């Protein structure tokens, strides 16, 4: 009955068989290549995100915590009982010399000039000597600096040669003035900085002193009174060596000197008895100046008493702190000392020596300060308006108000919508500390690097930070932290978090699932098990298939028209008398969830139909043959068997819903809200929208947190999928 097929023989047969095999291999290769391309694309994506989400950052404080504490300490020192304060150091010397119970402090140079009237105490058993200062075994020291820039050295020959001469001869002069020479290592570092800046082609370690004779022009050295006598000596010596340029020396103090150097541009070289602050450095940067820091010596603090003091020659740092803090008598600091009242002699508030003393003797950490002190610092550094706002969020003290007017506060609390501060317990120390960090210290990420740069180009990054942001702290930062996940949205990237967005996403997805899963599965059951094959049912089926392919933005328009506008009383919650109808309008979680529900409904219906169709017919027959109704059979046997397939389709649909942005933008997701959603009638934002919004911000740090948020989104997505898959496997195993 059938025709004999004639197959070719010999080489023709071989040709046919091998070409088939070759075609097979070619297809296999094509599939493998496309799989590999897919994996590479995925890896590139993850690499990109990870690269952004982790890496080195340079953090710079707006105000250094140490300077905050310093002001506080000085005020306390000056206002302590039994304290003599004077701007005139001679007065202090005379006072101390004549009072056996006196204690005071001077710069070491000043002490040397008056060493016959004063008695020097050792600190922790160590006297200030060249050696103990240089290796810092003597605790109370401060470095002395000159600041200039490479541009000044390149353009102003007089300044260039002045600094060369300064570095050549400084150690011959500085000890005569009463300070301590800087170490050879530090000096050669300073010389290397000068060499690099002035453009001399010298070998490392080599030092060429230039003959100053016949150089003309002018330069100005402005700043510290501490360094003034040193500068004077160098200038005189230069002039004696034939330097013909005019050297303008100004004795105005470190702060004024750096201001003249950075902001006014009137100084070629700034002299300072303390390191430059970040604020000053920023001022320099704004004027395109990159200060070079050169340490030319070290000053030490001399702790002195009257020569008539017979009971001690030493004081420990702890005793020193007590003597200038809580002690009223000497015995309070050390029981071996007499029970005589302490007479404290300290220089006035404008003196750099007081800063020096407060800084070295009372180094305090902000975090350890009492709540009262922290509130005081906050009061001194923030505006009353901000303080009032913070106080209404949460009070500082239960029994009194710091910023707010009691009457206004009471009025605000009596209103229909009382502030949180009216009922919440007062802030604790930790809370106030956080507030101080955020509002006053305000650490700011001034620059951030990618993970790859951080790992493989760390040296360059460090060098960059050292020149551009010397006061900044370089730390490795994971932008993805627990804080990031638990913090609400913020307009500063350092404090911004995704809690609000995560909650929004979860709420929206929950509504989406509760809406579309039952309806979708119900529709699938109807279409598969009950619907007869009529024209209407065929039309419905075709429409569902088409709807699964409609662009999501169209669903957004639909949601806007139906849920946000037409059903506003329902979706805003006004119908139920809940929700904030005035602000959210219909742009609520409910509207978003229903819109996304519509979006994934066709997908769920189609997946559920496929799964129900795949249940063997014999199972339905078995159920029906036992006298079960159709619904009993479907519910007990068909649905459980179809559930794994239904869940697979639902998981895919939900994943899509979590990642959707466009329809939610149309429906009216908020881009910047700080309040967690707490009902279906809340305003909301979701993770993808948050990411979208952050990537559109100009500040670079927002891209880092956007990358971190993408990781959160991926993890959220994967864990939701994983739990759904676990659920599915449970059902699949039971079958």
């Amino acid at each position, binding site marked *: 009955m059938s025709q004999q097929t004639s197959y070719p023989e010999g080489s023709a047969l071989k040709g046919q068989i091998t070409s088939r095999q070759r075609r097979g291999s070619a297809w296999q290769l094509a599939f493998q290549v496309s799989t590999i391309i897919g994996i590479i694309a995925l890896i590139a994506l993850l690499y990109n995100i990870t690269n952004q989400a982790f890496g080195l950052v340079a953090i710079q404080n707006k105000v250094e915590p140490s300077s905050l504490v310093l002001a506080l300490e000085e005020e306390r020192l000056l206002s302590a009982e039994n304290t003599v304060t004077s701007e005139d150091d001679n007065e202090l010397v005379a006072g101390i010399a004549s009072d056996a119970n006196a204690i005071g402090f001077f710069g070491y140079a000043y002490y040397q000039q008056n060493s016959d009237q004063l008695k020097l105490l050792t600190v922790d058993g160590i006297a200030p000597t060249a050696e103990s200062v240089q290796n810092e075994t003597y605790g109370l020291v401060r470095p002395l600096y000159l600041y200039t820039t490479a541009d000044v050295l390149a353009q102003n020959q007089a300044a260039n040669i002045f600094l060369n001469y300064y570095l050549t001869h400084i150690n011959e002069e500085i000890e005569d003035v009463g300070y301590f020479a800087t170490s050879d290592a530090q000096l050669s570092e300073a010389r290397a900085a000068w060499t690099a800046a002035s453009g001399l082609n010298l070998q490392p370690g080599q030092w060429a002193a230039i003959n100053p004779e016949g150089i003309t022009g002018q330069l100005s050295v402005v700043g510290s009174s501490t360094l003034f006598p040193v500068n004077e000596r160098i200038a005189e010596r230069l002039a004696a060596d034939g330097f013909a340029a005019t050297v303008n020396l100004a004795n105005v103090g470190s702060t004024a000197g750096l201001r003249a150097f950075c902001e006014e541009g009137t100084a070629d070289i700034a002299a300072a008895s303390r390191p430059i602050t970040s604020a000053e450095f920023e001022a320099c940067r704004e004027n395109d100046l990159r200060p070079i820091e050169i340490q030319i010596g070290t000053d030490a603090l001399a702790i002195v008493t009257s020569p008539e003091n017979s009971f001690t020659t030493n004081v420990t740092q702890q005793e020193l702190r007590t003597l200038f803090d809580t002690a009223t008598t000497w015995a309070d600091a050390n029981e071996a000392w007499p029970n005589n009242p302490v007479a404290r002699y300290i220089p006035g508030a404008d003196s750099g020596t007081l800063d020096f003393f407060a800084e070295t003797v009372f180094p305090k950490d902000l975090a350890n300060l009492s709540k009262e002190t922290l509130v005081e610092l906050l009061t001194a550094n923030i505006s009353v308006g901000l303080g009032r706002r913070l106080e209404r969020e949460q009070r500082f003290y239960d029994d009194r108000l710091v910023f707010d007017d009691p009457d206004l506060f009471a009025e605000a609390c009596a209103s229909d919508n009382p502030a949180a501060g009216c009922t919440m317990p007062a802030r604790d120390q930790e809370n106030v500390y956080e507030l101080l960090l955020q509002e006053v210290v305000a650490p700011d990420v001034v620059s951030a690097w990618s993970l790859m740069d951080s790992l493989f180009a760390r040296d360059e990054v460090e060098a960059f930070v050292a020149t551009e942001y010397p006061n900044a702290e370089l730390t490795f930062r994971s932008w993805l932290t627990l804080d990031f996940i638990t913090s609400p949205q913020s307009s500063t990237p350092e404090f911004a978090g995704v809690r609000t967005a995560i909650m929004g996403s979860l709420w929206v997805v929950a509504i989406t699932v509760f809406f579309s899963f039952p309806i979708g599965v119900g529709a699938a059951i109807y279409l598969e098990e009950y619907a*007869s*094959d009529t024209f209407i049912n065929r039309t419905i089926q075709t429409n569902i298939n088409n709807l699964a392919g409609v662009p999501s933005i169209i669903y957004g328009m639909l949601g806007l028209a139906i849920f946000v506008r037409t059903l506003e009383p329902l979706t805003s919650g006004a119908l139920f008398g809940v929700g904030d109808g005035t602000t959210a309008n219909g742009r609520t979680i409910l509207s978003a969830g229903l819109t996304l529900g519509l979006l994934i409904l066709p997908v769920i219906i189609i997946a559920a139909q496929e799964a129900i169709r795949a249940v*063997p017919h*014999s*199972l*339905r*027959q*078995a*159920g*029906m*043959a*036992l*006298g*079960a*109704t159709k619904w*009993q059979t479907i519910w*007990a*046997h068909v649905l*459980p*068997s179809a559930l794994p397939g239904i869940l697979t389709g639902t998981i895919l649909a939900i994943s899509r819903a979590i990642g959707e942005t466009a329809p939610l933008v149309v429906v009216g997701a908020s881009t910047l809200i700080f309040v967690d959603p707490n009902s279906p009638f809340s305003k909301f934002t979701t993770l993808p929208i948050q990411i979208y919004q952050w990537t559109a911000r100009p500040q670079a740090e927002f891209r880092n947190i956007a990358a971190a948020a993408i990781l959160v989104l991926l993890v959220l997505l994967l864990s939701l999928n994983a739990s759904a898959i676990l659920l599915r496997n449970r059902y699949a195993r*039971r*079958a």
Partner: protein
Amino acid sequence: MTSTVTGFANGNLAVEARNMHVYYGPFRAVKDVSLKIKTHAITAFIGPSGCGKSTVLRSFNRMNDLVATARVEGEILYHGNNIYSNDVDPVEIRRRIGMVFQKPNPFPKTIYENVAWGARINSYKGDMDELVESSLRQAALWNEVKDKLQESGYSLSGGQQQRLCIARTIAVKPDIILMDEPTSALDPVATLRIEELIQELKKNYTIIIVTHNMQQAARASDFTAFYNMDEDRAGYLVEYSGTNELFTNPKNELTEQYITGRFG
């Protein structure tokens, strides 16, 4: 049609088909079948493929309703009631006339649940454990599964699965059990066990069995109905009589040709 099965009292009449035609859409699959089934007896339906014997069997408990295009004409009388009359609930009919299928089809549930589910949805009020045990005992499966009642029905072998399906049918306490080639998917040993079981069940139930296997019909049944299809491919009843008689002394030439293996 040649039928010699008329000689039992009406009290022994389990179910009766009268001039029954079954259509699938425009196609007539079964033509003018009339026969009476005796209670507490095993009636076998034999015939070549496509002769409509399964369709006739399924008509007895309205399983054909599950096929959207199927339509039955004529009457099937169950205790004097036409089960195809408009006011009859097929669900109630299927409870009384149970069915075992060609391929074992246990539910994807535990052995216990397989047996208990049918009784539960029919609002059985008694002791469920007892019912499960007695049903499994009647199906000669109890000794094999009594220690693994909570395991999946799929963990059993094919023959055990088929006995489980029988047990699940028994648990609903039907009058009549329809069996559609219950052993065709089983090996000879399992087949023999099912045949023995059917003999046991005869005491309590009326059994109608469709089989492809003439030896099985000859061995295991009391009555045999032979179907064939006509030139329009519609099945019709050729001969219906006591099994012994049909196999030893067939009245119809076609029957003789079929049982001697000359066609089919």
